[in-house]
């Protein structure tokens, strides 16, 4: 359970988000949408305790994340980012194993059976067992993205935050990852995922949080959000809507008339 109480976020001297108020329950999959620079990444980092909030409070299962020690926090919340990093001579399994860090005391260096099981499960969940022993540096961008997701899964936290996890992925893998995230939320995890693709968000998420104008504009089920004009206002474009056979709504950027 994540609770945002009047959260304000600054980047340098600039107020990025103000008065963000929301609750995300266990077992819920929330997609965060917003234009570039709206604060999606910063909000996720703040929930993970990696960006200081300027006002309000962020509660993880009822406890303010600033009151949690770094290890305790990393046992409650995992953050998956796609940020590039140069990794020499480190295997995929080696990378994912680092996700077990918060489950060890500082003197516990040896890999435990529980670690091996968790790492194996994480590798399997994103279907990268086959190249677990390859060097990370030899992987494609999409494969790397799956490794970062596996790293977050290896932490085995009740809250999983992902910053654009489907960027670099082809549509099949993207579908598999979002399906996986959905199934993870159904096992009781809170999953919060920043996305760019509105229809991806609508297809998989229980609710969509829309950031814009320096605040949380709305947090609502996809149907509600996509049918209103808020989404167009946020991105500053006109959209066409179609209804799929199952009755679900999808939006598309209106093509310029001939």
């Amino acid at each position, binding site marked *: 359970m994540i609770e945002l109480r009047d959260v304000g976020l600054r980047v340098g001297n600039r107020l990025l988000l103000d008065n963000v108020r929301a609750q995300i329950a266990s077992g819920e999959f929330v997609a965060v949408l917003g234009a570039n620079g709206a604060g999606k990444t910063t909000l996720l980092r703040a929930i993970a305790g990696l960006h200081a909030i300027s006002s309000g409070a962020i509660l993880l299962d009822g406890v303010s994340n600033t009151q949690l020690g770094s290890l305790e926090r990393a*046992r409650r919340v995992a953050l998956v*980012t796609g940020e590039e990093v140069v990794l020499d001579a480190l295997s995929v399994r080696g990378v994912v194993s*680092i996700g077990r860090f918060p489950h060890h005391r500082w003197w516990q260096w040896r890999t435990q059976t529980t670690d091996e099981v968790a790492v194996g499960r994480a590798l399997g969940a994103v279907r990268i067992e086959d190249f677990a022993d390859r060097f990370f540096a030899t992987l494609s961008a999409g494969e790397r993205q799956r490794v970062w997701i596996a790293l977050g899964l290896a932490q085995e936290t009740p809250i999983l935050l992902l910053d654009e996890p489907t960027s670099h992925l082809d549509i099949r893998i993207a579908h598999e990852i979002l399906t996986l995230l959905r199934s993870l939320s159904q096992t009781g995890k809170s999953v919060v995922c920043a996305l760019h693709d509105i229809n991806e968000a609508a297809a998989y998420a229980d609710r969509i949080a829309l950031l814009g104008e320096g605040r949380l504009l709305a947090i609502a089920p996809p149907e509600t959000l996509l049918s209103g004009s808020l989404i167009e206002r946020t991105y500053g474009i006109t959209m066409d809507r179609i209804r799929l056979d199952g009755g679900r709504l999808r939006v598309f950027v209106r093509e310029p008339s001939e």
Partner: protein
Amino acid sequence: MAKHAAVALLLISLVLLAGALALLVGGTPLAPAQIAEALAHPHATGTSNVIIWELRLPRVCVAATVGASLALCGAMLQGMLRNPLVDPYLTGVSAAAAAAIAIAIALGASAAATPGIGFVAGLAAALLVAALARRGGGIDPNRLILAGVSLSTLFAAIVTLVVVRMQSSNYASTIVAWLAGSMAGRGWHELAVVAPYALVGGLLAIWAIPPLDALRIGELRARAVGVNVDRAQWVILAASSLLAASSVVLAGLVGFIGLIVPHLARRLVGSDARSLLPACVAIGAALCVLADAVCRRIVAPAELPIGVLLAFIGVPAFLYLYLRPPAHAN
């Protein structure tokens, strides 16, 4: 697991072999049997006992401490800053120690006082660099590198100035000899003075192993998996400064070990800090002991400065390691 045990055995053998070879080198020829006899009976009297216990063994231990300290320090700083070109002297420890010692020698300070002066100045410089590199509760890697390099340049200029001003005296040659690195005349006394600091540095390094491991995936992700990066940075910086200052006091400026050995060790055991740091200690110790033995032998009865020898070996080794394609490209 079997591979780890084999590598550990190989490294331990390497250190013992280097030590044994170094004990054979000296002005007075001693047969291996005499050396073994002297080692087995530390309290016996006799020339070979004095040579082994008062001259060669302390020298081997000093060289091993210097090599191990520098290699460990280099591995930690490279890991923390995620920069393979960083060496133990980055934090300004050596340059400040050199400047302080040069000034002390020029002012006529006694030879006994100079190591202490160098140690204090080295640690003070590390603190200054750390203060300049501070960002929030932690350290900004780029600022650390910039502050370290800038202050080192300033201290190097001070050394040059002192040497130029003192050119007519023999102080200048004392300073230059110190800058070239040497373990001549170092023994149990110096080792005993430095050992506690090096030991604290080593213990802090052990604490830093898990965070160093996690830092391989970048600072942000390391924070996300629960590493207290700020604390880890301070501990690593403290450990590195203590180790670098200890080695500077024992041997002056010994280049390349802190830069090259972590690369060699990485090729051998990978980048997992649990294997990397012990491997650096072993390879650094063995390399420094061997290099010191060669320095004593090559132009006997004079001694070649170890810094000069290591640069001659270190530069080709460095180029080879860097120009060779990495393991994952094969």
